């Protein structure tokens, strides 16, 4: 078992990072007045851990005995029947599912399955009418329609069922749902908190941590606890008696994005073969008497084909399931590192602009490439104006 899983707090009492939230949740449960909850926050901040702790607090250790079910639901949608396949984790008292897995048909999941689950009221051993908890993951990926059909369900069956929603960004959850839930914002852990956790793990594992090493891991972790612990374990595996300047292995995809970024920036030194068409283009340029012949030649060599090369790499990233938003974000980050301060603001603006379009659109590659082209254009213009 990896350390991430091994040292994951099982109860609300064991929580190190978000102790205040854990305390509040505990209070909430002990007062027997648990509302619907909406957990939101960046990945690796501990939403799921807190939810599991909460469930354990409510239902006792029985909540951990779950079975995985992969069921096909037949849904009668007017004229046709739709088969939906959905994986659920369920214990006696709660069900976990991610309705967004089924894609655009997610509203049927909400309308039929969740409603069905919410209706059935469990009766516990003492004959007391308990309630059931539905944990819905990735609510922000639900379509509008699905979210709208969720709101009535939440009200109607609130006596027998509690919903715990979990998502990364609450801005994509509609107002109506947010107002029906108690919103719990889970911040990404600060670096100090991460260091604390790492030191705790180190102590448990009996490891000697050189001073500053945990801080370095925390710094590199992007404030994601999961990532910090994983890199910590990686370091441990790579070289045990830690040295304080030990290399922390980077994420491969981040390295790759960084390669792309340097490709984009390196335009001035083309290292590629020239094909016949380009030779003809150059010949044409040379035959036409213009002021900046050399410039035109360079442009023919550089401008679009560099973009073509970038396209291949972007495709490569997207093929490996890396979400385009993250690619864009990382790319911006890498570009900003190498950029003149004058341009940073503008580039950020355009990155936001294209990310917005990307989220509205369907083909991420169009927008990613558009951003790269825009960047190239701006950067080139900048180079020409400043260096002539």
């Amino acid at each position, binding site marked *: 078992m990896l350390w991430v899983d091994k040292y994951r707090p099982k109860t609300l009492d064991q929580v190190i990072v978000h102790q205040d939230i854990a305390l509040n949740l505990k209070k909430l449960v002990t007062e027997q007045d648990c509302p619907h909850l909406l957990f939101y926050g960046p990945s690796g901040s501990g939403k799921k851990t807190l939810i599991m702790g909460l469930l354990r607090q409510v239902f006792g250790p029985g909540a951990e005995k*779950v079975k995985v079910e992969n069921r096909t639901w037949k849904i009668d949608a007017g004229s046709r029947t739709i088969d939906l396949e959905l994986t659920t984790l369920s214990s006696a008292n709660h069900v976990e599912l991610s309705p967004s897995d089924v894609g655009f048909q997610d509203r049927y999941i909400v309308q039929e399955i969740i409603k069905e689950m919410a209706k059935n009221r469990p009766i516990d051993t003492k004959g007391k009418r308990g309630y059931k908890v539905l944990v819905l993951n990735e609510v922000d990926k639900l379509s509008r329609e699905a979210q709208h059909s969720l709101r009535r369900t939440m009200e109607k069956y609130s006596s027998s069922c509690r919903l715990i929603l979990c998502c990364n960004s609450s801005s994509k959850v509609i107002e109506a749902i947010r107002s029906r839930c108690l919103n719990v914002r889970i911040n990404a852990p600060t670096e100090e908190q991460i260091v604390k956790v790492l030191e705790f793990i180190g102590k448990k594992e009996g490891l000697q941590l050189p001073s500053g090493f945990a801080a370095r891991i925390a710094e590199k972790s992007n404030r994601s606890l999961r990532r910090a612990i994983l890199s910590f374990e990686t370091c441990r*595996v790579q070289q045990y008696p830690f040295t304080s300047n030990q290399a922390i292995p980077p994420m491969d995809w981040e390295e790759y994005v960084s390669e792309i970024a340097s490709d984009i920036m390196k335009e001035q030194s083309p290292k590629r073969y020239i094909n016949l068409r380009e030779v003809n283009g150059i010949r044409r340029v040379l035959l036409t008497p213009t002021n900046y012949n050399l410039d035109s030649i360079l442009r023919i060599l550089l401008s679009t084909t560099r973009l073509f090369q970038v396209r291949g790499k972007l495709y490569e990233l997207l093929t490996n399931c890396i*979400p385009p938003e*993250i690619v864009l974000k990382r790319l911006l980050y890498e570009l900003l590192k190498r950029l003149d301060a004058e341009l940073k603001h503008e580039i950020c603006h355009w990155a936001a602009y294209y990310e917005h379009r990307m989220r509205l659109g*369907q083909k991420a590659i*169009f927008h990613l490439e558009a951003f790269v082209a825009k960047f190239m254009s701006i950067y080139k213009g900048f180079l020409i104006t400043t260096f002539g």
Partner: protein
Amino acid sequence: MDMDYDIPLPEELESLEADIYLHDHQEYYPDLDLPEQDPPDSPPSTDPQINAQTKRPRSECTDSPFDDSELPSDEKRSRIVDDEEKEEQEDQQPYSPPPEVEQEEVRVVEEENTLSRYAFQIDGECMPVTAPGGDRVYAKICRFETEERLKKLNVKSNSNGLILEPLNVLLEKLEQDAFTKALNSSSEGQSDTSLPEKQVVHEQLWVDKYSPNSFTELLSDEQTNREVLLWLKQWDSRVFGSEIRTTSDEVLSALKRHSSIVQHQKSNNSNLPRNNWGHKWSNENFRQSNNLENEHSNSKGIQDLWNKKTRLTGPPEQKILLLCGPPGLGKTTLAHVAAKHCGYRVVEINASDDRSSSNIETKILDVVQMNSVMADARPKCLVIDEIDGALGDGKGAVEVILKMVSDESKNDIGKDNVAKEEQSGKTSSKKRRKTTSLSRPVICICNDLYAPALRPLRQIAKVHIFIQPTVCRVVSRLKYICNKEGMQTSSIGLTALAEYTECDIRSCLNTLQFLNKKKETLNVLEISSQVVGRKDMSRSAFDIWKEIFQKRKMKRLRKSNNSHGNTSDEFESLHALISYRGDHNTIWDGIHENILQLQYHDPVMQKTVKCFDCLGVSDLMHQYVMRTQKMALLVYQPSLAITVHRLVAQIQKANIEWPKSYQRYRTTLMGKMDIFKSWHFKIPPYISRHLSTKSFVEELISPLLHILSPPTLRPVALHILSEKEKNDMAQLVRAMVAYCITYKNMRSDPLPNNFGHEVALEASGFSFDPPISNFINFKGYLSGHYELSLAMKQVLVHEVEKQRIMQVSIGKSLHLTDGQKENHDLMGKGSSIAESTTIGHSAACVGADMRGDAKNVFNPRQCNPSTHTALSTLDSSRSASTSMKLKFSGDKKKPSNGSANFFDRFRKLSGKDSQNTDAAVQKATVERDSLPLLFKFNEGFTNAVKRPVRMREFLL
């Protein structure tokens, strides 16, 4: 001569006129013209219609007054024209009259040349002439004078003469007048009672009425016709038996010869044999064509080969004929006519019939395998029309045909024998085999060759693609029909119509009939606004991309004149083109794919940015339209494409590729997602619930790969690992079990010659079972991940297996004893205990292996039973399926003491182990590495047996 022409003699003028008139007349009224050459008892225009009798009264009552009124007017017109022309000629060329004579001569010569057996050979209008003997030839109609006259008239109309209105307008008026007069007179002459009769008569469509009935009347491309016929002819030996074979061979060769001639020199208009059996002409013509043949020795060789082939095997190689082409070119007609011509009875299955595969199978079998006992004993030929039309049901037909053809090819050998028997004249044609073989020709007709349903058929069928017939042939045909129907048309108008409909004869005829019914004439200028709807021609995506990326050169020339009108024109045409196509998604993908390959001048990449903005907007729009289902908004897609065109279009040709990368990306993404999902499903829930795809690729995969292959793990025997290392190992195995990861042999067979890279190759042979390492295999990126050695991986595989089994049993027992307890911690503890024991075991095993090796090297002949035991133990402990392995070792050697307890044996061995020195082990490993002989076991059912085994393990 000069005198003659300066002052033309009245007789000559008249004869000239008559000549002109005759020619004009001939095309208008062949019926009237023909009797000069025909015997009166055989009507030259062999109207095959069944309802000829019903038509008779009408034609009699309408035609006669019509003709009477028509003739004078026409004559008058031509006379006027002629006079004018004469005058004009006199004006223009007072000193050079000879051209007239020359033209006459030329015309005569041409006429000699243009006498032909086939209508198709004549390039232009022709007239059938039937000789008294029944032979029919086609004579070309030369229209030199008329043509010239037209030209001159045009010239005159351009130059402002004395007449206020242009001459052709006057002429048209005159024509109109005459026509209306004729109409009036005809309607006056008709009684009211005949009106309903007329309507009944008109029920029949011209398309059916004038559809070609014989092979020679076909309008479609000659070569295609010939090849279809040839193909059908090749069936003769099978269908009609051997008695007709000789003639058919002859005809076949003639056909072949002909088509090759057509291929090689199309201009040759020599008389060639008609493809009827036992034709009179054939002998002399054969000789002729043989001469020709000698010139083309190449084609002769081919032909000989063909002859041989046809002699050996009866039916053609491809059993199916697939005709394809745009609608209205006469595919169905060709199939019917050709089949009829070759003596078949046509059975047609078209889209209107039930085409489910079960129904169609019986139908096809009926047609293809049975002989009719009914009156019509001709063999049948199956024509499946519109095979691409219905996708769901149409497939049935394709499947049945495919099945039959594949059966055929399977039975081919057997059939050859039978064919030989047939050749020897033993069997009669009545006898049929029972197999579902294809013994009758099948012709399939489709519009779209690349319809997905036809993909399998395309591979086995002989494909003929129809091309448009030349406009003049279509026009002459149309003219003939118009004349028959008594409709006044001009050849210019017909040409325009034919061009407009892209030689779709059907739509031409329908239009003409419609016009005729409306009593309107075909107006050249108003074809588009008149009745004819333009066909919705959707062009291929490639054409559209070409239009977008390429500027038209012609347009550019015109740009100097009026740039504004040009741009709007261009806009219009592109807009129409793209919106007709409609498949915006593909079009945009194509633009995206190819745009970066274009060479456009773009100093600071502003154009590229704009283009990508257009792409982005189109994507947003598409997504919005799809989500809200507001299809009306799709109207705005083409304008975006036109923006791109304005930005990047170049004059030079762009090489355009079909957009594949996006699709490829989609499919590989799906594949990877599937891998992830199935893996995710296997991981126990207490881990998997915290993992999403995003967090997996973003945060987990790289560290996980690092953790799973620790470089600190020394590839040595387990028992010499320190306590700490053993702990690490145990942890690694536990992590692998928890994440359901193991190694799998990918069986990449190492090449025998590069033993130097043995380790590397072998290591690559073993890879992670859910192929998680693929997630970081970016193209052109070298990850710094350490890879374990093969031996280590093998050990890990067994450890993981063991651990998994152990965990299951522990989990069960825990569940049985105290289910209420928190079993995670306990399980962890229990498994760690189990882990340490198993590691101890396997360490001992490996140690035994080492020691055995050492002994083997040092004194190979002293193979004492204890090493046997050790090895067998090793084997058994290594494999998951112990029994398999035991059997294997039992086969090889004498059965070891299998009854002995597993752990007993261990104790013995470990005792021995301690006696061995480390040095021996070291030496053994060195020795082993220097002897890289592998033995691969290629039989058996499980991977446990299929493992590569070292040779020395057998040598013991």
